[in-house]
């Protein structure tokens, strides 16, 4: 674990150089924690680079406020999923290593765009466990992110998401 943290500490100045002016959140890097401690949420940096797998989901509000070259992954517990215009957003809570809580808000696109991706108003519910890969704001605003798309950018209750409306712990809404 110590090695992993050293890795992150090495990476962070590089990121700072690449994205001058972005205040990268002071993540506590901890990888490979005890699976039994599943309430203990792990935040770790997975990488950075060009978001070649991301696709343009966001029509009205572009990504001007986000550092599109960044990519972080956070694990947490859903508190609310808001299906609304102009964008839907997911609220979840993640615990730092030392136990302090960070509330997260991660925005998606508008409901018709998300429907087309196979998402639904019932996709997430309070208590769901999620692992979300996202981009973060340039100004370093804490606890805010924007979903990026890609086959494994969201893991919901241990399953990859999105892969259709049925991929919730609830059954797909009846047509």
């Amino acid at each position, binding site marked *: 674990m110590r090695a992993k943290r050293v890795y992150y500490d090495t990476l962070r100045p590089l990121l700072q150089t*690449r994205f001058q002016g972005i205040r990268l959140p002071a993540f506590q890097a901890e990888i490979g924690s005890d699976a039994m401690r599943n309430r203990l949420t792990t935040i770790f940096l997975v990488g950075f680079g060009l978001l070649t797998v991301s696709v343009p989901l966001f029509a009205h*509000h572009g990504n001007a406020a986000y550092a599109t070259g960044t990519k972080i992954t956070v694990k947490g517990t859903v508190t609310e999923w808001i299906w609304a215009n102009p964008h839907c957003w997911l609220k979840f809570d993640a615990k730092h290593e030392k136990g302090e809580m960070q509330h997260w808000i991660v925005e998606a696109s508008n409901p018709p765009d998300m*429907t087309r991706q196979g998402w639904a108003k019932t996709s997430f519910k309070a208590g769901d466990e999620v692992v979300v890969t996202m981009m973060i704001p340039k100004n370093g605003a804490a606890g805010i992110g924007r979903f990026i798309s890609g086959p494994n950018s969201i893991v919901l209750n241990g399953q990859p998401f999105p892969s259709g409306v049925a991929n919730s712990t609830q059954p797909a809404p009846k047509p």
Partner: protein
Amino acid sequence: MLKRLVVSASAMLVLLTFAPILCAQTDQPPGVAEQLKQRKWNNSPPVKAEYDAKKKAAPAPRRDLWGLWDGTAEGGIQANGPIEYPANPGGSASQAGDRPADDPLLGEPGHFGQPDERGIPHHPPYTALGEETLRANKPGTGIRAVPPGEINDPVDFCDPQGFPRMELYEFRVVELAQTKNQVLFLNQFYDNWRVIWTDGRELPKDPEPRWNGYSVGKWVDDYTFVVDTVGMDERTWLDNVGRPHSSDLHVQEVFHRADYDTLELSVKIEDPKMYTQPWMALNKFVLHRLPDNFDVEEFFCSPSETAAYNNVIGKPVTAPPPK
């Protein structure tokens, strides 16, 4: 040898040029299309590949625009400006607004959009007033994109997007209906509609401006319907990247029913106060016919939802970085 190099370089160029479009067409996760097809309500339009795979369509019916038409598959969302005039260095209107990932200024505090449209492939022919008005409009996408809290796009506060922006931004599903005296244009985005009169009346001479203006249409042949519109409110933008218009704006739409499944739409912008010459915002843009039982998902602008979004996300991500 040189020829080979040129060929492969051109192929690469073509590939790169269309990469964002290709990407947008294949953005549905596997299995989703099948699930969506089984739905009876809140339907999503097919992706372009599905339309392309269709067999040849039946001939167009005479003087008939009736039906549900989809602009989504051909890039009707036009986040970065109209198909023919995107305000995007990459030149793609369908790709959502973004700073290029290799932008040297990426992440520099206070740097978001640039004031003008330097660096885009071609510009609308602005007058001096047109350019000045453009600069005052702060869009959320395109090369001039600002962060959410600085956007002054009227649509951001749930003002109507009006006409012609309803065809130049978020042009998704539209239902066209014909009555004895009217063509009704029922637009999915923000659930609004407009009326095109076909009773032979003339356009108003000194119109009181309104969001969607005043439209009259006539069939110039059995498959071509031409609509003229004047009297648009100056508060609206022409597109999603802040192109302006004055109350002198005249828009001409040409709807051409190419075959049963295809309606082509051209949109000409004429506004001598803002532009030195007319320009074509859409040129034979293809709308695909949707099945008659397609249920259009609602897409309202709710002021309370919008305020919540602006408070919870827009303002925090726009605030200057803490010292």
